């Protein structure tokens, strides 16, 4: 192998200009793939964070029938001693909620909303963690004020400190109506959430509805990788309830998540596939112009398979150098954009795709390794045809050429 490696390196150095150009092309392609992967991973993780933070969590518990009819009638009672059946080292937090439809009225406007009773201290697992609060946030589960989105506040033509009326249905099926003072408003990226959710203290809302029940328990994990096992163990311990993960609850986001995964591989195949044709061409030219030399080696006793291995090693050396240079270049590009790319100018359009206005790239070692490993496989594949072609020439014919 040492001999083959030595021959390969020296053969590559034989045509410095040609191989230098090829090396540059590989490096640029690998860097491009790695850099685009960091953006796609950033988008994907942002999508995941948005989906999970959107009051969904990684895993969520509902009463059967709630998803078809999201009212307080489809609720369940949790024991004081309840904690999700998930190992503590992967449990980031959990939050019980009452989430029901309601109507909110100001002096001037009326809107349909999702009325959400929360324990404020538990909502560090939702988008409220990063929301910008104007005024005050709820202070306790029995807080009898409301916090609503900035956009909703604007649409209601109301203001912090003023009063609103909320109408919703109680556990007995009768309407409840009550006036609330606005404690504050939240501001998050995109106006969808701001128009939808109105928060009130959980215990206060339960008292209004005359129930001890909740409509959901949202569980957030430290890692997406434990989502499936967490769902299964919780489903086992809460067999009379519906336990679902964010992918089931947010199928569109799940599809986008998978789509981003697919794009990473399609992009890799497009970039590196095109490059592979160049590599095959270059290797074929390089070995066919050495057909006499390789024929002589076989005449002296080198086996056909050794010739094949030599061409493969030559391709692998070239690819390995290209991948190394490309990975370094990709890391430099990543470092240059690691603070994020500001997409504010396109914020209206990209909101449709669930993209935040600041796209922060994420570099995963597993992605770098996948690109490197796949590139090496392509390098091997690219060398097989030139190697096959050159060993079809008989040593004697090669010597006469």
């Amino acid at each position, binding site marked *: 192998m040492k*001999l083959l490696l*030595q*021959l390969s390196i*020296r*053969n590559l*150095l*034989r045509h410095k200009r040609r191989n230098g150009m090829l090396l540059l092309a590989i490096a640029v392609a690998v860097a491009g793939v790695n850099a685009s992967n960091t953006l796609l991973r950033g988008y994907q993780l942002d999508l995941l964070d948005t989906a999970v933070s959107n009051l969904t969590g990684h895993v969520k518990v509902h009463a059967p029938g709630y998803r078809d009819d999201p009212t307080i009638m489809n609720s369940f009672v949790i024991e004081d001693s309840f904690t999700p059946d998930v190992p503590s080292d992967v449990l980031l937090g959990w939050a019980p909620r009452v989430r029901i439809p309601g109507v909110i009225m100001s002096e001037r406007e009326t809107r349909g909303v999702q009325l959400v009773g929360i324990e404020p201290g538990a909502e560090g697992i939702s988008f409220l963690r990063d929301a910008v609060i104007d005024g005050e946030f709820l202070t306790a589960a029995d807080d009898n004020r409301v916090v609503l989105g900035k956009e909703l506040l604007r649409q209601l033509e109301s203001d912090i400190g003023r009063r609103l009326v909320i109408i919703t249905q109680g556990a007995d099926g009768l309407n409840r109506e009550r006036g609330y003072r606005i404690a504050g408003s939240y501001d998050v990226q995109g106006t969808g959430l701001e128009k939808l959710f109105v928060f009130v203290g959980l215990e206060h809302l339960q008292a209004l509805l005359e129930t001890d029940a909740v409509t959901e328990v949202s569980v957030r994990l430290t890692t997406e990788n434990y989502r499936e096992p967490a769902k299964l163990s919780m489903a086992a311990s809460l067999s009379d309830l519906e336990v679902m993960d964010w992918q089931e609850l947010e199928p569109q986001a799940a599809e986008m998540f998978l789509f981003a995964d697919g794009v990473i591989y399609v992009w890799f195949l497009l970039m590196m596939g095109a490059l592979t044709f160049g590599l095959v061409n270059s290797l074929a030219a390089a070995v066919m112009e050495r057909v*006499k*030399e390789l024929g*002589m*080696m*076989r*005449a*002296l*006793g*080198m*086996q*056909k398979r*050794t010739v094949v291995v030599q061409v493969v090693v030559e391709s692998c050396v070239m690819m390995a150098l290209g991948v190394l240079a490309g990975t370094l270049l990709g890391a430099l590009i990543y470092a240059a954009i690691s603070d994020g790319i500001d997409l504010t100018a396109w914020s209206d359009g990209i909101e449709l795709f669930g993209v935040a206005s600041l796209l922060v790239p994420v570099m995963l070692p597993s992605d770098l390794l996948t690109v490197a490993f796949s590139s090496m496989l392509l390098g091997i594949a690219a060398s097989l045809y030139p190697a096959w072609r050159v060993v079809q020439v008989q*040593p*004697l014919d090669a*010597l006469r050429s």
Partner: protein
Amino acid sequence: MSQPVVVCKGVTKTYQKEAVPVHALRGVDFVVHPGEFVSLSGPSGSGKSTLLNIIGGLDRPDSGSVVVDEVDYGGLSESALAELRLHKLGFVFQAYNLIPVLSALENVEFIMQLQGVPAAERQGRAEDVLTKLGLGEMIHRRPGEMSGGQQQRVAVARAIASDPVLLLADEPSANLDSRTTEELLELLKRLNQDNGMTIITATHDPMVMSYATRQVKLRDGAIEHDDAALPA
């Protein structure tokens, strides 16, 4: 008498040249004993190179048998023939055919590397052979930095460094001037006389023929004259 190194019996070979059959060898019987220096000569198309290539396992006969160092080529796979060339035969080609990216030393080591000879041993042997052939000062030069004669001596060094049973040289002087040819032939003569190396050359060159101890002349694919057939 010792076992012959080469035994060819009834060897025939026909090529198709533009759909016309060309009978390169027509039932050649040929035996070479250890220590012989044989010159195969004859006009172009006489079959000398074809016979040399068949003995070297680079070509296969259409019929007849070839046995080299008691190994019958009949039925040997391509891989087994390559193995045999690697371990039993040494080749010197007309165009030197050195590997341009390797130094003289590395070229000589090449076959031993394929044979799996340990690094220290093969380097020692390669240096030794190159020094004996007067190339001790040039072991780190690449072929492109050497004259034709020097390159051909490196080719000889490569062929003999692994101590083959049989050295085959196809037109070894074709690209050399007469002085360099003479030096090369003196070298082959020394290898033959001092080391008892069996050598077969295919050549047009009368000077090469004059150094051989046995003349074999071919014409139209058959042996026209063989010194070995003459009465002692």
